[in-house]
């Protein structure tokens, strides 16, 4: 399965090149997306919602360029910045964002400017005719999402922005709402950015995947290709930075630990997981903030996993600094997150030899 074509300015192609200064870090996204559904994934706080709000025109501080289907909505260099009400972008936030003082019908009609046929079509697509007289307070989570989706569709948007429409719903309900989304995709054929934490949804709906981390694009491509990498798939879902495939070596029930050998060629001791037999394939998951960095050989430390390594790169990510260190011997890389103060105090820089320490209980097997 190849990359969907996104060249030229074909129907609904979304060109994004924006910079949004915000505390605590800046969002910087460059992407060229096809006129279909793009799944936007990444850990919490990676800037997904900020990206959607910027596209909708709700972030006045956004700089750069945004074009949808050839219409330039934002081009700060050229002094172009369409007001949100002129952009015709349908935005459905995570909690549906229905107006509590209006009935479902009042909500759906809100932005339709009297275009009754669009309202009717939206009502039919989402099958909400039976809900129209009710107020949002009396609707279930799934019903709210359908009404909000209909409200966005009824405005004839040029682009649809859906912020985790299924996140607030339980698993059973998710499966019942998903067909509506497939239907919107197939019947309305709108360019769409779809924020989700769910790999299954991304694969089912999206033609393209945009993975964000700390306000930057970490990966972009066909969902099938990107999510075929277990590490990326898990990162997209869990937001854990260090994901290392390996195999269980042995258990030490008395010591309360399990030894795992990473495929990259080093061993890690983790909290006892007796249900995984020796030889079982597992993935070691360690958050970057759980990796300690020392500039001298450490002794007498409770952390069981200490590795000599060399810093390959440092990058400012949000308020912190993420450093990539290559373990001596194996050549495997680990990401560690430290404060800028620690970088200064320890004189951390590329090429410097360090020791990385990971507590057994900071390691999860996923």
């Amino acid at each position, binding site marked *: 399965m190849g990359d969907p074509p996104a060249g030229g300015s074909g129907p609904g192609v979304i060109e994004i090149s924006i910079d949004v200064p915000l505390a605590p870090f800046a969002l910087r996204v460059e992407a060229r997306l096809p006129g279909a559904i793009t799944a936007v994934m990444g850990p919490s706080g990676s800037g997904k919602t900020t990206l959607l709000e910027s596209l*909708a025109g709700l972030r006045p501080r956004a700089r750069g360029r945004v074009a949808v289907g050839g219409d330039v909505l934002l081009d700060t260099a050229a002094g172009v910045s369409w007001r949100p*009400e002129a952009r015709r972008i349908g935005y459905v936030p995570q909690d549906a964002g229905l107006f509590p*003082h209006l009935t479902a019908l009042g909500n759906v009609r809100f932005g339709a400017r009297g275009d009754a046929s669009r309202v009717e079509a939206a009502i039919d697509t989402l099958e909400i005719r039976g809900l129209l007289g009710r107020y949002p307070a009396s609707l279930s989570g799934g019903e709210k999402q359908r009404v909000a989706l209909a409200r966005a569709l009824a405005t004839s948007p040029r682009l649809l922005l859906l912020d985790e429409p299924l996140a607030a719903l339980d698993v059973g309900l998710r499966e019942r709402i998903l067909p509506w989304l497939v239907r919107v995709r197939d019947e309305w054929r709108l360019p769409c950015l779809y924020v989700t934490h769910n790999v299954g949804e991304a694969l089912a709906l999206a033609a393209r995947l945009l993975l964000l981390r700390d306000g930057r694009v970490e990966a972009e491509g066909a969902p099938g290709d990107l999510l075929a990498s277990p590490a990326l798939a898990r990162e997209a879902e869990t937001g854990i930075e260090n994901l290392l495939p390996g195999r269980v070596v042995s258990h030490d029930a008395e010591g309360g630990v399990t030894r795992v050998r990473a495929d990259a060629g080093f061993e890690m001791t983790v909290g006892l997981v007796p249900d995984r037999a020796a030889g079982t394939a597992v993935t070691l998951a360690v958050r970057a903030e759980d990796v300690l960095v020392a500039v001298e050989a450490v002794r007498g430390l409770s952390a069981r996993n200490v590795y000599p390594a060399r810093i390959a790169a440092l990058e400012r990510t949000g308020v912190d600094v993420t450093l990539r260190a290559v373990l001596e011997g194996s050549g495997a890389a680990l990401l560690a997150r430290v404060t800028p103060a620690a970088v200064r105090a320890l004189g951390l820089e590329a090429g410097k030899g360090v020791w990385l320490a990971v507590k057994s209980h900071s390691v999860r097997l996923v």
Partner: protein
Amino acid sequence: MLTAEEIRTVLFTLQVAGLATLVILPFGVAAALLLARYQGPGKGALETLLSLPLVLPPTAVGIVLLHVLARRGPVGAWLDARGIEVVFTGKAVLLATAIMSFPLLVRSARTAFEEVDPRLVGIARTLGCGPAAAFFRVTLPLAWRGVLAGAVLAFSRALGEFGATVMVAGNIPGKTRTLALAIFHENQVGRDDRALALAGVTVALAFAALWTTEWVTRRRAGRGRA
């Protein structure tokens, strides 16, 4: 019961309080919205300034107004040159009550506006509303109870305004004498029975205003609102 003159005083008081409330409504709503949404520098100072009439002695406000509006005062001279007289007229009563009631409207309306999720306003914008349309279609319908409560509080405060009014408008029967001033006057001339009768009227008026608000807001709140 009430004499014809007392009834005129009651009507004059109602008229002034109602007019003062109407006059401050647009400004108070604008100020409340500003305080609810604006987050930049100077917010604290603005907040304090708008609340000052709540804590100042009304007579202090009155004496300042008197000197600003007097024929030789900075604003009074300008008005006098155009043949407009304010001090010791009904206009002065209106001005004094409006200024003293303003903070009550702003406080209540501001709390109501702060409770409106700004994201709903953003969504209204994406649905084609300009800022004014978003205010009238989303913010105000969600906050009207607080605005109404603030307006009633302001009206009730205006009914009872005494200190600032007496300084800048005097206590002229048939011209600037409101209920509050009439009560004081009757007491001063030794007719406490009349003062008490008028006090009863103020209690009834304030009670009616507050109770109506309570009733209206509670009744409408039952309707499908989260």
